[in-house]
């Protein structure tokens, strides 16, 4: 196999890698051929020495740059082994005391208020229905039913707001805790 044949077969085996990466690899191997020729070897000898192109391509693919997510995770695990970052710990604690915890309590209280509104309206609806059923509202049954229905739709709206509010509060809390852990060990980057 000569230089061109080897590079062609390697190029074929590198399929699936990015164009830039494959081009880079092919230029490295081209350089290897050129250096070998300068050292007095024949193209065939060099190709033979390089070994199987498919095997080499497989190794290149194994060593592919890791996705950022995995890389970050590895970085975090490494930082965890070396222990907390002093500045990171101070930052996390101050941030929690002065910003995160007060903010969290405020939002939670607001949502708690919304929840009590939801229950309150439910109570009023209950009274209206009870009134209609017991005949207490005999003079204005229709208006009572209408009022109950209106309140019911409003209450459904309140419930959706409350549900989404709690959902995102807990989601954000999770993200915040994760971020704090990262800063705790790695500091601010």
């Amino acid at each position: 196999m000569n230089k061109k044949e080897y590079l062609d077969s390697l190029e074929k085996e590198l399929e699936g890698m990015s164009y830039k990466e494959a081009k880079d690899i092919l230029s490295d191997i081209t350089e290897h051929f050129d250096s070998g020729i300068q050292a007095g070897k024949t193209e065939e000898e060099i190709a033979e020495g390089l070994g199987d192109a498919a095997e080499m391509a497989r190794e290149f693919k194994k060593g592919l740059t890791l996705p950022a997510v995995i890389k970050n995770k590895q970085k975090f695990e490494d930082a965890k082994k070396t222990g907390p970052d002093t500045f990171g710990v101070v930052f996390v604690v101050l941030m929690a005391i002065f910003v995160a915890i007060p903010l969290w309590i405020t939002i939670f209280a607001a949502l708690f208020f919304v929840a009590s509104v939801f229950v309150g309206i439910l109570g009023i609806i209950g009274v209206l229905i009870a009134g209609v059923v017991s005949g207490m509202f005999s003079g204005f049954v229709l208006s009572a039913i209408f009022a109950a229905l209106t309140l019911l739709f409003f209450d459904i709206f309140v419930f959706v707001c409350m549900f989404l509010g709690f959902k995102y509060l807990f989601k954000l809390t999770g993200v915040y805790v994760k971020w704090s852990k990262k800063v705790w060990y790695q500091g601010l980057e």
Partner: protein
Amino acid sequence: MNSQFKKGVLDLCVLAFLSNGDSYGYNLADCMASKIQVADGTVYPILRKLASEGYVDTYLKESQNGPPRKYYHLTELGKTKLDKDRAEWEEFSKAVDEVLSSDKEDRGDE
């Protein structure tokens, strides 16, 4: 020799080789291949992986006759990695030696 043996320590060998000074691909491949009997091609995927992990960096340097060559340089991170891996390897190979020699003794006793 068992190729599985070699695979694990080739990274370490490449790092150790580069700790003696910067080098280019062909030279590295040639030295590795002559010492550990691997195909010349095996060093390239390793060099690429080490570069992507920040253990080595590369630069181009003119060669006397011909196009510029890509040189590989061990970074500080790479030096740390080399020290760590070398210590691990020494510990491991010592342990293996001990196991192998105790195996011999046991057989001798029988």
